[in-house]
């Protein structure tokens, strides 16, 4: 429980350029992030909206440490965590977690549900076997997956349930920030609503801060406090959610409004 306006995650001037081609060939540069800065308060939800190719996923990767930004800094509770290597999971990385878009690809098809959820604990802490099980089961209950299904494989679950498992897994290490990368894609509308509600509940109970990435403006409008719009690697618009409705006309917004139709 922190005071309103307490900064939990901040990005300052993040830039990343991808180059294609070997050193002796003409190289093809693609600027994925161009001086992106944002700030997330504790307990709040920041939505990042944009078309595909606007740099949303790259932003997510840089924030979480899976990609290294060429320039800029990421600060978690004031601590600079940008120098994390993408490959070895430094402990700072665990405070920010990422939920991927496609849940069927984010869960190892060979592992059972309980193994998937307890994996972070297995790696990160020194619990005993039974402690692992207990905590994992408790987490699964919290996200609404029946304990009778602990031994089922991912392909035996529906898309919505898989996302719940992914959320359980991400939350079991008690992170401070959760980045949701297009987590509603591919789900039925009603399921989308259920997941959204679950996320809001968990945000309350665990004091989480969310960065919600999506191309669907109307959906994030319901759960976000602030909305940021990205285009071609840059932030082009930023405003509190109340002010963004599909009726506001700006060139990007109306285009997005058209995308997220009904």
């Amino acid at each position, binding site marked *: 429980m922190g005071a309103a306006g307490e900064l939990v995650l901040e990005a300052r001037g993040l830039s990343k350029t991808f180059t294609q081609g070997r050193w002796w060939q003409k190289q093809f540069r693609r600027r994925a992030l161009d001086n992106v800065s944002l700030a997330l308060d504790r307990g709040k939800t920041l939505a990042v909206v944009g078309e595909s190719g606007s740099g949303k996923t790259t932003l997510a990767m840089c924030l*979480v*440490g*899976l990609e290294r930004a060429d320039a800029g800094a990421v600060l978690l509770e004031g601590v600079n965590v940008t120098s994390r290597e993408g*490959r*070895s*999971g*430094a*402990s700072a*990385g*665990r405070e920010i*977690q*990422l939920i*991927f878009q*496609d849940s069927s*690809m*984010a*869960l*190892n*098809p*060979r592992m059972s549900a309980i193994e*998937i959820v307890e*994996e*972070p604990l297995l*790696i*990160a802490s020194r619990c005993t076997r039974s402690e692992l099980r207990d905590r994992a089961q408790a987490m699964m209950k919290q996200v609404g997956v029946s304990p009778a299904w602990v031994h089922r*494989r991912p392909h035996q679950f529906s898309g919505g349930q898989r996302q719940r498992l*992914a959320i359980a*897994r*991400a939350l079991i*290490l008690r992170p401070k920030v959760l980045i949701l990368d297009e987590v509603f894609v591919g789900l039925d509308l009603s399921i989308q609503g259920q997941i959204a509600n679950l996320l809001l509940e968990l945000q309350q109970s665990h004091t989480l801060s969310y960065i919600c990435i999506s191309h669907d403006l109307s959906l994030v409008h319901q759960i976000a406090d602030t909305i940021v719009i990205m285009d071609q690697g840059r932030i082009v618009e930023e405003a509190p959610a109340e002010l963004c409705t599909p009726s506001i006309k700006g060139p990007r917004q109306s285009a997005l409004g058209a995308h997220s139709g009904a």
Partner: protein
Amino acid sequence: MKISRKAMLLAIALLGLHLIVLFAGFLAPYDTARQNRELPFAPPSHIHFVDAQGKVHFRPFVCMMVDRPDAFGEYLEDCHRSFPVYFLVRGAPYELFGFLKTDLHLFGVDAPAGIFLMGTDAYGRDVFSRFLYGGQLSLFTGLVATVLSLALGMLLGVLAGYYGGWCDAAVMRGAELFLALPWLYFLIAVRAFLPLSLGAKDAFLLLIALIGLVGWARPARLIRGVVLGSRERHYVLAARLFGGSDLYLMRRHILPDIYNILLTQAALLIPQYVLAEVTLSFLGLGVGEPTPSWGSMLSTLQQYSVLVSYWWMFLPGLVLVPVFCGYVLLASELQPGRRAAVA
């Protein structure tokens, strides 16, 4: 990973074959070096159940082989005396599995007759006994060399695929080099420039090392391909976020993807390596006399007189066909395309 019933049956059959040659000492009536100078190139013994008087015996028996008086090098059966075939006899001592000292053999006959199920060779040595011991050598060289190749291929393939960059480039260029080599040329060149006359055990180990070290390239490339794909899976990225070390990620998430490849490659490589050993021994570059190997047993066929007249000398070669058949069928059964089931 599901294995079809057909694959299981094939695997069991092949296992059975390997067990048979493991028990070579027990199944072979004679020692491999024992010569019968008076019986060079004798044809396989006829097993009789009916004697000269037309009486039927339950216990099979053999007759003496004597030289034909009119033709040089040919034999006649002299059935005045019948030599019954006894089972579980005491014979020449040997070491079962290399350490159990015993002298019990499955079957045998009394001297001076001999029971030569596959005839004899130039020195009168029992081909059947040498066939069994030779099988030990050839089959197990193939097996162990395959394990070596796969281990090396797996190590390099995983490293190259996982770490990428210059490690990947180095391994791939190296693999290209090894794949571009005409393997037999390289193998015999390297083999023969190591001491030619080695003790049997040293030569055996050397062969295994050589054959295994030459063939790592293809499995490595395949494994690297799979690892490249597996490495980017979202569940791997997620595990990395939880703080999973490289070793953990490899062990838990990436390696299970390559077990399938390892099995199919094993089924493909083993027959090739057995053939490599047979070829090397055939050329005189394998294990030397008097240790038998299927290859060296076949090399006498290079003399045209032997080739035409003594068909039983072909047998060590003919047995390769069903062995290869078994492995090739097993490999095609294990191909991922056939089994739709996952996990």
